[in-house]
């Protein structure tokens, strides 16, 4: 496998894990716009332990995950007291505080970043991503997953039904934080280098867009969103120059055409976001869509038992 595809598979796997980390709070109705903060916590914990103490990869990544999860749990109590716009702002502010603290910390390399000695190949993130996907699917099928969906759909009624919604929300937020930290730890080892500039506010925005555009109703959504938006830029990388040459030929410009600006990919992501929100705001994959697909396949056996 070429290095190019290995890199894409790594980043795809990491993005899927990261997207699930944001999906869990969103699935309980909490928009988390601080994903980059949790990812940075995981990445820097892993990088520090690996660089300073030479600990093996499973330990560093595990510790990174636990650190992000514990921080998520601790801030969930005060942060989830806020709601709506306030919650979005609080998570956003949290990520900025994490980034600012790391930037000013000399032990973590500050603006210079840190190199990570232990390297993992693409297989590890992919295997972990598969495990995480299965875990989230399992989680959504449990009673806890049901209460998460119920909290998302209507908090008041769920509360009246005797569900401890606060417990559900805090757990979802903390598990989500841990998953984002896991993604960060894997990122640190897969790319052998961490710098705080790569955990900026735009990353938090992108990952939230993956989740919301993929759909928040089922665990398929983040998978589809993350896969689509990780692979789309790579597809556009080869597709856009073709379009530009074709357009140039159409207008009658002769000779070689320079490659288009890299920013076009983000323009397309933004435009897709706007279009999705206008035409299909519930996301690409919805619960009814999944049910319909399933219904067609297993009509014969189910009808009797139902």
């Amino acid at each position, binding site marked *: 496998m070429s290095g190019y595809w290995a890199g894409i598979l790594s980043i795809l796997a990491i993005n899927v894990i990261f997207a699930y980390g944001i999906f869990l709070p969103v699935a309980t*109705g909490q928009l988390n716009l601080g994903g980059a903060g949790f990812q940075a916590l995981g990445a820097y914990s892993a990088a520090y332990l690996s660089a300073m103490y030479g600990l093996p990869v499973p330990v560093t990544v595990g510790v990174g995950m636990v650190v992000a999860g514990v921080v998520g749990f601790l801030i969930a109590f005060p942060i989830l007291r806020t709601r709506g716009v306030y919650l979005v702002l609080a998570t956003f502010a949290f990520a900025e*505080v994490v980034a600012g603290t790391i930037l*000013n910390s000399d032990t973590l390399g500050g603006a210079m970043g840190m190199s990570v000695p232990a390297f993992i190949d693409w297989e590890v993130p992919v295997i972990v991503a598969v495990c995480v996907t299965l875990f989230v699917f399992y989680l959504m099928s449990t009673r806890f997953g049901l209460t998460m969906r119920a909290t998302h759909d209507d908090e008041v009624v769920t509360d009246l039904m005797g569900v401890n919604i606060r417990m559900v929300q805090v757990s979802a937020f903390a598990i989500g934080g841990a998953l984002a930290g896991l993604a960060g730890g894997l990122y640190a080892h897969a790319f052998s280098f961490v710098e705080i500039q790569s955990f900026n506010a735009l990353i938090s925005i992108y990952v939230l867009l993956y989740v919301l555009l993929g759909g928040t109703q089922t665990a398929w959504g983040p998978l589809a969103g993350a896969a689509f938006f990780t692979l789309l830029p790579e597809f556009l990388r080869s597709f856009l120059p073709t379009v530009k040459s074709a357009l140039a030929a159409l207008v009658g410009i002769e000779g070689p055409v320079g490659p288009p600006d890299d*920013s076009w990919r983000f323009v397309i992501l*933004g435009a897709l976001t706007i279009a999705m929100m206008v035409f299909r*705001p519930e996301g690409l994959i919805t619960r009814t869509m999944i049910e319909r697909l399933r219904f067609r396949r297993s009509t014969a056996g189910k009808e009797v038992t139902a």
Partner: protein
Amino acid sequence: MLLIQQFVNSIMLGSVYVTVAVAFTLTIGVLNFLNFTIPTLFMLAGMVGWALAHWGLPFGLSGPMTWPLALFFGICVAILASLLVERLTFRYLKTKYGDSTEHAIPLVSSLGFLLVLENLVRIGYGTDAQRFPGPSADLTMNIGGIFVRIPQLVSLGIVVLIVVGLTWLLKRSRIGRGLRAIAENPDAANILGVDTNRVVPVVFMLTGLLCGLAGALFAVNYGEVSPQMGEDIGTKAIAGMVVGGLGSIWGAVLGGLIVGLTEMMTIHFFGADTVQVAVWGLLLLTLLLRPQGLFGHHSIGKGKL
């Protein structure tokens, strides 16, 4: 003396934050919508103004008045862009399923607009910071040993005028009554004959105007524009708005000034690197300890966003 000078500087810096913070707070107060295109509109006005001043104005208008006219067109572009955002984000907000994340639809669309507009500007004008050919920023006035730059003083005056005008508009005019009614309860306002489709665009026009104006003032005062100039200002303005309290215009004014002061004092005592931590820490603390800010109303921004 240095401290007093820093204090004066912080008010001048804060006045830009105030303008953008007022734009944020207006959208949240009336529509319960955190509009992430605001920093982009700010940047758009500055960059379009620069581009027109740099490459010449259309319709043969270039001449001695180039840069004010260029900035004027920049502000117009910001207002038009803001109306486009209203068309494609807010107008489609219709409750279909009643679950709690669907209220985030305008917010998510505005994030999409942020990506589109910012990257289009990058494609068109490049990512480098550009020098804005405004009046010399060295025009200073010396008041008892304190240096005040004249363009900044003028911008401060403009900002004060705008805020007072806005308060008057909201309190006294028919449109303002409609806006306050929508802020209170959109459905009831609709039943009582407030035409939402005519009143809501006013919020977006005002947003575009405020952001465009702030961008123009920034270009004149600091003599530099770049596609990234909105990010920093946007975050400071959000912090200012939260500190002052969501939905309160005078809260945003005070909050913007407090953020400017915090920034200058942090630079003075701890150096420039810690500014981000100080400002965001201030924001996080406010959210955790007193979410309604200094003047905010309890109910605003709490709805299921």
